[in-house]
């Protein structure tokens, strides 16, 4: 579904991502793991169009999207979450979510001023979508709560709901389980499985190895910007290079 070829990004001499060939298959959960500073988030920033790659190419369903801006990538069906959720803390969950479907609407300034028929239709679509994704992530009861008043784990769910509101094909999750406890982590893993069952393709960055090993269909390991291994969870946990570079000698070690 998504493919990168020799994808490279350097920041003034520091190479953050180095010639990575990578593939995300339709309908799978693909995980990217690696120590801090391995270039995982930068890799996400590249495929979601937030940063322009220094060299290399990105293909989405065969189409070259290498230099497309972020908002166009989103329209083509790649949604993402951020490590910090970036939600608007003072607004309600619902208000945060409504904007998620904005990219599928066309109403501009004047139709908003006169509240044209199309505008009213699009606005109610956005609201329906928001309620729908909120239900999907199991957080309907939060609709009217200000984001500031809900828990860390609930915020993570809302952030995922926001990504889903864009009607994506591929969802990039950047450390969705960071900062939440073990119970909540397994709940989140359930949600990610549910997303897969709903036909979404998922790519996830995570430090919690146990969760990844249970969840992922395939794993890529990055170290210092370079891909050092790729394979199924079983293959990765046996891989000598990975164990040496990342797991610090003990297979299945919790990195977190």
């Amino acid at each position: 579904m998504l493919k990168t070829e020799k994808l490279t990004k350097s920041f003034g001499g520091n190479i953050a991502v180095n010639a990575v060939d990578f593939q995300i298959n339709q309908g799978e959960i693909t995980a990217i793991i690696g120590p801090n500073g391995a270039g995982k988030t930068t890799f996400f920033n590249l495929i979601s169009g937030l940063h322009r790659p220094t060299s290399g190419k990105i293909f989405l369903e065969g189409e070259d999207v290498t230099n497309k801006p972020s908002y166009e990538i989103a329209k083509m069906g790649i949604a993402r979450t951020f490590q910090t959720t970036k939600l608007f803390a003072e607004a309600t969950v619902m208000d945060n979510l409504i904007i998620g479907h904005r990219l599928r609407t066309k109403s501009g300034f004047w139709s908003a001023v006169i509240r044209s028929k199309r505008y009213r239709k699009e606005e109610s679509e956005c609201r329906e979508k928001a309620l729908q994704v909120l239900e999907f992530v199991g957080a309907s009861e939060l609709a009217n709560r200000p984001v500031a008043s809900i828990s860390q784990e609930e915020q993570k769910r809302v952030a995922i709901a926001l990504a889903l509101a864009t009607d994506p094909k591929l969802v990039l999750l950047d450390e969705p389980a960071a900062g939440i406890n073990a119970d909540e982590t397994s709940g989140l893993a359930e949600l990610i499985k549910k997303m897969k069952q709903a036909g979404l393709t998922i790519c996830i960055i995570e430090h919690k190895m146990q969760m990844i090993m249970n969840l992922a269909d395939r794993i890529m390991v990055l170290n210092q910007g370079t891909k050092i291994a790729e394979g199924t969870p079983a293959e990765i946990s046996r891989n000598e290079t990975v164990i040496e570079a990342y797991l610090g000698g003990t297979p299945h070690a919790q990195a977190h």
Partner: protein
Amino acid sequence: MRSFPASKWVVPALLLVALAIPLLTDNSYYLNMLIMIFIWTIAVSGMNMIAGYAGQLSLAHAGFFGMGAYTLGLLMAKAQMSFLVSLVMAVALTGIVGAVVGMISLRLKGHYFAIFSLCMGVIISLVIEKWESLTEGVRGLLGIPIPKIGSFEFSTVTSQYYLILFFLVLAMFVNRQIVQSLVGRTFISIRNSEELAEALGINVMQSKILAFVHSTVLAGLAGALYAGYLRFLGPEVASIEHAFEMLLYLLVGGISTLWGPLVGTALVMAMMQLLQSWQDYRMIIFGPILVLIVMFLPHGIMGALARLKMKRQSVLPETIDNENRVIEKGTTDRRLAGGEIDA
């Protein structure tokens, strides 16, 4: 109307009072003051659009006010154009210049944009001051004819009052429609996080330009009305001090609230009038007020009121069974929550 003040009758009542005032008094001192409040409210509401809702602090708005004023003044005084045509041209010109300036400057982030806009404001005011062959420079532009629409002359203070009230209501209506719409939500999402907005498929640059052009058009409109009302202009209308005053009005009333510009402008301008014998002390008082506001009342008067109200509401039990109500509440809360100012 779900905007604050929430009660249905407050806005119509305010409007009725505004319409009735000239019938109750023909004291031109008060009418003049109200006219000035209306004019500056329009300009400040423009500043609110870009700074409050889209989160980009622009200090160029006194410049755009001056540009609107001089465009109307010059077209009427030197090109003998009619009032309406001049007004449209003034608004169009500030919009076009706003679009060009926006395209250049809105790529800049945070402080860079504020500084750039400050410099833009200075450039506009310097051009007005120095281009004497066109603007008469510091001598001032005199001889702007009385505005006329058809055969009706806006020669009395009362007629000007209604003319400017009309544009104030229009501007506030348009702002309300925008703020409480997907377009306004788009602006707010950009203020919240440009990265997130972009990742949600929003063309951030395009939206920022839209917000900026809307805001410069309002500033230009206010300037043009000002020129048509006073009928003489000096280059100080565009001076950077006015931009700072507008910022003061906006912050006192409440940045990123719909009614903040009106409340703040009315309150501060009325206070300035009361303190007129203290003319020299004005900024000695208002400078520290600005500091105290950002420290203790960062959402201004309307923002503080809205917060109080929200607190009271959230004590009430939520009913989720009625979907309509949920949606309605959603809108109110989001708008009420809009008091946040963020870089």
